[in-house]
């Protein structure tokens, strides 16, 4: 029952009864939050995450494109094929880098084929391989349309063979 004559005293007693035990409770240990937390940081993190997602998507698209072009999912193959195409195009003085990549298997086959033909070509192939940073075993490309025209790799010695 409320004592209206001593209402303020009544408030004090009631609050002491209800809140007093809570005030005597144990205090959890203070753990300082990381500096810079907050809305701005959250926005910054979101922006960075967004950029990373975009970059990954771009990288994914590039990788997908490279895989489609070279017919291989192994990134070391992409580098090998690109280097081989660049060399062969430079040697033959021709254009058509993309076509060369698409027929990467053909280029390799040409090189393999020429390697059996002459020891010079073989040494040239070795030289090519020596210039590549990450040699990897040959992976048979998927069967696709062959590009006609002159051979993309000349059988002569490559730049790696010069001493």
């Amino acid at each position, binding site marked *: 029952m409320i004592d209206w004559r001593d*209402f303020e005293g009544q408030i004090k007693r009631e*609050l002491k009864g209800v*809140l007093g035990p*809570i005030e005597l409770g144990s*205090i959890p240990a203070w753990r*300082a939050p990381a500096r810079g937390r907050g809305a701005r940081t959250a926005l910054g993190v979101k922006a960075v995450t967004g950029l990373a997602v975009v970059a990954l998507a771009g990288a994914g698209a590039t990788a997908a494109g490279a895989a489609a072009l070279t017919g291989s999912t192994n990134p070391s193959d992409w580098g090998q094929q690109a280097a081989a195409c660049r060399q062969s195009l430079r040697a033959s003085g021709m254009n058509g880098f993309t076509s060369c990549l698409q027929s990467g298997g053909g280029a390799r086959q040409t090189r393999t084929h020429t390697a059996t033909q002459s020891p010079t070509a073989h040494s040239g192939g070795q030289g090519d391989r020596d210039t590549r940073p990450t040699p990897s075993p040959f992976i048979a490309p998927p069967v696709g349309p062959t590009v006609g025209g002159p051979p993309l790799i000349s059988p002569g010695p490559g730049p790696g063979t010069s001493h």
Partner: protein
Amino acid sequence: MADSRQEFRPGSEEDFERLYRLAYNRVLVTLVGVLGDLAAAEDCLQDAFESAYRGWPKWRGDAPAEAWLHRIAINEAISYQRYSRLREVGKVIARIGRPVPPPDPGTIAERHDLFDALRKLPARQAAAIVLRYHHGYTNREIATALGIPEPTVASRLVAARARLRLVLGDDHLRRGHVEMVTLAEDRVPSD
């Protein structure tokens, strides 16, 4: 009050930890008074201490640190209350047409009339009552804690008390009315 403004150096980790230890339970109690729920009060207090920690290097020391902390915590509690009310509205809308579950008998047994009435006050009025009658704050300290001018504090307290009386008076008037009716019925001659 647990501190004097000379005792704390803005930005000092050591002093902030000391303020935390000194003020934690006192501010928690204020938030329980405002929110009427210990778990919610603890959540709000945690957020409040994190905000305070971020603002600690900029604390000017022109007001007691505990009152400053109270201000941050009360603002957190007000935000929490707004969010809870919105959530309650959502629940009520979702519950329309369904029977309301009966209240838990345990909760009724632990009821405190005045404390329950406190929960029906606006957050800043409830906080003013707890700060004055439980913590024994001065008007100036309450002004800092509530972010209102000092002259407003007295009128805020008068308004809070009047509202408490009204809320409690309603219940008591109703009970009184029932008692009067019962007495009147007893006195009716049975002829």
